[in-house]
């Protein structure tokens, strides 16, 4: 993978990303239906969450149960920078992204320094998210349990768009950036190191890879994209409170979509997020707006996937291709 400047597969993947970006970007020109654009926008938002989780969980093998930690931090920074700091929303965005990445590096430095992995790491991320939730409830600059409201000032300069199309393009830009980073993980030396650490940390260390730094970079990147998702959330809904920011719903959404689509793959998170979103929409149409029903479905899908398709839905295509090529099962 590292020999040629750009492998044929890598080039094909890049072309795929470009095609995807172009096709989605043109959607608002094809339809002006608010419901349709809203659906695509929310699917892209869910994709972003899954992509962020996938960087650390899929490529790095570190399963976080508390990714809302970075989402919430990004959301709060985005809101507080505008409200208390008087910053423009476009200036607040890099702060939100940087702040979430910093929280990622902090949690990562603590956890990976002491060799946490598996269930321990999952629980520590969850515990951090809970600590942040309680702090956000208790201090004043977050507005406590009441939350923070960003006033409506519709203009592109304020990152508040008059139509869904604007938000769709914004979140699409994040998703494409995440796709490019994921592509880089699949085609770079760093990505190969990260996957080597995931598959066998001791073996990776034996050939001179520093697992601590490799994993630290992954959690920083993952946190950055999660923070972007948080900032986006605040811009769209103009509101954030501790339960939305640091509650388990976002952590679960990110993780389930990545696992359903296929961990450690380029298109898996996109596939997973879209499939879950379609499922959620179907149930809404069938049963109406019932509290918790979406999460029930997410949970059932997660259990079914883990039992029957541990490589995710995207894995079906891979398995078929491998059978066709007669290579048999690939070892993950």
């Amino acid at each position, binding site marked *: 993978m590292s020999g040629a400047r750009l492998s044929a597969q890598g080039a094909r993947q890049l072309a795929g990303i470009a095609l995807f970006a172009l096709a989605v970007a043109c959607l608002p020109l094809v339809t002006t239906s608010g419901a349709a654009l809203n659906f695509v926008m929310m699917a892209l938002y869910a994709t972003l969450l899954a992509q962020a989780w996938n960087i650390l969980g899929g490529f790095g*093998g570190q*399963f976080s*149960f508390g990714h809302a930690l970075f989402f919430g931090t990004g959301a709060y920074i985005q809101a507080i920078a505008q409200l208390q700091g008087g910053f423009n929303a476009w200036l607040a965005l890099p702060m939100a992204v940087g702040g979430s990445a910093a929280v990622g590096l902090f949690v990562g430095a*603590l*956890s990976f320094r*002491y060799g*946490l992995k*598996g*269930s*321990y790491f*999952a*629980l*520590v991320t*969850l*515990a*951090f998210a*809970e*600590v942040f939730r*309680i*702090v956000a*409830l*208790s201090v004043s600059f977050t507005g406590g349990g009441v939350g923070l409201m960003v006033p409506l000032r519709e203009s592109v300069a304020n990152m508040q768009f008059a139509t869904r199309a604007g938000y769709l393009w914004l979140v699409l830009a994040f998703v494409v950036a995440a796709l490019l980073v994921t592509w880089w993980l699949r085609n770079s030396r760093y990505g190969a190191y990260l996957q080597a650490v995931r598959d066998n940390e001791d073996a990776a260390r034996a050939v001179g890879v520093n697992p601590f730094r490799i994993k630290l970079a992954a959690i920083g990147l993952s946190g950055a994209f999660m923070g972007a998702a948080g900032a986006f959330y605040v811009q769209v809904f103009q509101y954030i409170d501790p339960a939305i920011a640091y509650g*388990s719903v976002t952590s*679960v959404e990110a*993780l389930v979509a990545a*696992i359903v689509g296929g961990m450690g793959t380029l298109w898996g998170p996109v596939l997973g997020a879209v499939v879950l979103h379609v499922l959620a929409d179907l149930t809404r149409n069938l049963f109406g707006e*019932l*509290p*918790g*029903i*979406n*999460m*029930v479905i*997410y*949970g*059932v899908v*997660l*259990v079914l996937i*883990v*039992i029957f398709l*541990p490589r995710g839905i995207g894995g079906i295509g891979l398995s078929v291709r491998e059978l066709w090529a007669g290579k048999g099962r690939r070892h993950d």
Partner: protein
Amino acid sequence: MFDPGILFSSVLNGLTTGAVYALIALGLTLIYGVLHIINFAHGACLMLALYAVYFLKERLGIDPYLALPLVVAAMFVFGYALQRIVINRAGHGKDENILLATLGIAIVLENLALLFFKSDTRNIDTAYSLSTVAIGPAMIAVPKLVAFAGALVVSALLFWVMGRTDLGRAIRAVAKEKEGAKLMGIDVDHVYAMSFGIGLACLGAAACFLLPAYYVNPQVGSGFVLVAFTIVVLGGMGSFVGALVGGFLVGVVESLGGLYLGESLGQIGIFAIFIGVVLFRPQGMFGARA
């Protein structure tokens, strides 16, 4: 800062809560010791048991303490089936998969409860719910005293099962050396399911002791999840004595934290302990390095 009377009653209250925590943690540590997985659905299963106790009282008028055998048996069967039918098939040789499966179960249970029972917080009314007894300068609610004693009795029972019965020996054998146990003719899948069943049965007992002085809503379990994990990690993964001591310790810390820092911020004490222990002493107080 506070007079000794308040401090004393706070510690006493913490100990009574701690006993129930210990019971919950014993179930968790048993499952961890044998299956080497963290049962992420532990809190959700406790919530389920609490609802069972609640509806037995409200619909059928069965007193929580009398409902204990029923709830314990039901939770045991539920746990046995859950392990055999769902969790056992999710592993594919990777511990992470089992963790994910239990997370999925937790999500499903919690949100099914939300769907069917709504997010209302419910509690039950019993003749003894509000009665108290004086112990020295402290007033302790009767249900809390019963919970304290009951949790100790159930824990003792569990110690006996683990130490003195064939089932306990089989469980310990599988926990230590799965392959060897299999060669000795132990049905490992059955032992796994039994352990999971017993782990959830502890929750059934805990629910019966908790509800008269507590409440139930769909989210109630998630509060207990991290507390139980904290205790298990603190006591050393898989250690029974550790779970017992850890339970009391966390109960007291929570009670004192609430006294000095206030209800919401006091919760942080537990998470701080958890993060600290996991980072700096993951083997816990009584455990060997995991």
